[in-house]
């Protein structure tokens, strides 16, 4: 049962609150996942340590072509940010598709990642952007790729009773790079995705220098379509190559059947369509054409 709710003013203070809680104190950001999990017994905590007032953590910054999002940055901040729209549009779109505006006003991008749902919208986009989490704990600071944060469905490798993600960072996209987000959803708001796909491509002379293609929920966390990425690396920008990549993505996907959000078979059939659409859109944004 919750005994206290603390609002520290520095990361150090937050860490010491966590330490004082001896495993019973837990980080909370927007609380849109955590409070519901506490209410229905999926998680337990005696003390909540709210990060959202710590100065600096509410900011989205660009420094040396690196975009950094503080742990208190909300989905709506990201969706409306000119910077993100221009230099990481895949994330702006992913964040825009979360829940409803009220949820986006409260819920954080970092919370979305740490909560570790396989198809968490912002997390899927962040993996495509090659994002890295800055994690602090009493033993110091470390940087972990978002892709590596998943320990299973709904399980993060992070321990939110002792570790804090302070920021997430990723390179801003360059002129020859483009990104796109595709989401198969049952309605336009308040719906978790049946499938989501995030891609980032980098082009030179209408060839793919590289591509990052991430799909979900087709595994325990966001899944890189590495075969598809390999097909595109160095290949011409063409519909044929894109379709081959889409087919390869499908071959690498392992979705489950959900009574609420589509059977495995259906998801497998539609996945390549989303991958194709996302790649086509990303190519256009990167200044290429198929």
């Amino acid at each position: 049962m919750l005994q206290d709710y603390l609002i520290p003013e520095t990361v150090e203070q937050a860490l010491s609150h966590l330490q004082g809680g001896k495993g019973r104190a837990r980080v909370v950001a927007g609380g849109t996942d955590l409070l519901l999990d506490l209410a229905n017994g999926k998680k337990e905590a005696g003390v909540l340590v709210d990060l959202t007032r710590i100065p600096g953590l509410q900011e989205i910054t660009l420094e040396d072509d690196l975009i950094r999002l503080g742990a208190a940055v909300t989905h709506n901040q990201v969706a409306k940010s000119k910077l993100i729209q221009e230099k990481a549009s895949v994330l702006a779109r992913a964040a825009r598709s979360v829940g409803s505006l009220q949820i986006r006003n409260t819920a954080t991008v970092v919370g979305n990642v740490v909560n570790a749902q396989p198809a968490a919208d912002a997390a899927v986009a962040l993996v495509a952007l090659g994002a890295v989490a800055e994690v602090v704990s009493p033993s110091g600071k470390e940087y972990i790729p978002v892709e590596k944060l998943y320990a299973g469905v709904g399980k993060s490798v992070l321990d939110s009773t002792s570790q804090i993600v302070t920021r997430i960072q990723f390179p801003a996209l360059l002129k020859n790079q483009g990104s796109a987000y595709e989401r198969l959803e049952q309605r336009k708001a308040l719906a978790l995705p049946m499938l989501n796909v995030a891609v980032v491509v980098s082009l030179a002379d209408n060839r793919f220098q590289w591509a990052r293609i991430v799909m979900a929920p087709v595994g325990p966390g966001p899944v890189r379509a590495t075969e598809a990425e390999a097909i595109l690396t160095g290949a011409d920008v063409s519909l044929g190559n894109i379709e081959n990549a889409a087919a390869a993505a499908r071959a690498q996907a392992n979705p489950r059947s959900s009574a609420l959000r589509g059977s495995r078979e259906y998801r497998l059939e539609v996945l390549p369509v989303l991958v194709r659409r996302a790649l086509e859109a990303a190519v256009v944004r990167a200044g290429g054409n198929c």
Partner: protein
Amino acid sequence: MSSKILTFTLNGETIRVVVEPTDMLADVLRDKLNLIGVKKGCGQGECGACTVIMNGDAVTSCIIPALKAEGAVVETIEGIGGPGKYHPLQESFMDLGAIQCGFCTPGMIMSAKALLDKNEQPTREEIREAISGNICRCTGYVKIEKAVSTAAEKIREGK
């Protein structure tokens, strides 16, 4: 349980109220402060009936821990206008038939107000985005959307 004193600004007034760490903001507003305009349709952030404006943003108060509001500025339907000084949104909701059962209305108006406070010339898409978390089962949203754009017009004209 360790009760705490929550201090925040509610509809322009400084409020101090004793709350438990487990209390949600919606329950404190409804049960302890008698603001029954904060409705509860789900208690899970999924219907928007409990929408209030906190530090300028529309939020679903049923999933916000009350203590998170410490020092915050909170507005509810009760604080935005009334007889003789209705908010343009209240006026247009009343005049254009945007109200049926009325259960979604306070939350709907608060979501719309948070939008118009920042954007007096919203597009149709922006209006829909602003109320996308407010479920209304009665109206089909048609007259609500119209009421919001009409209120925006009135606000612009009033300047």
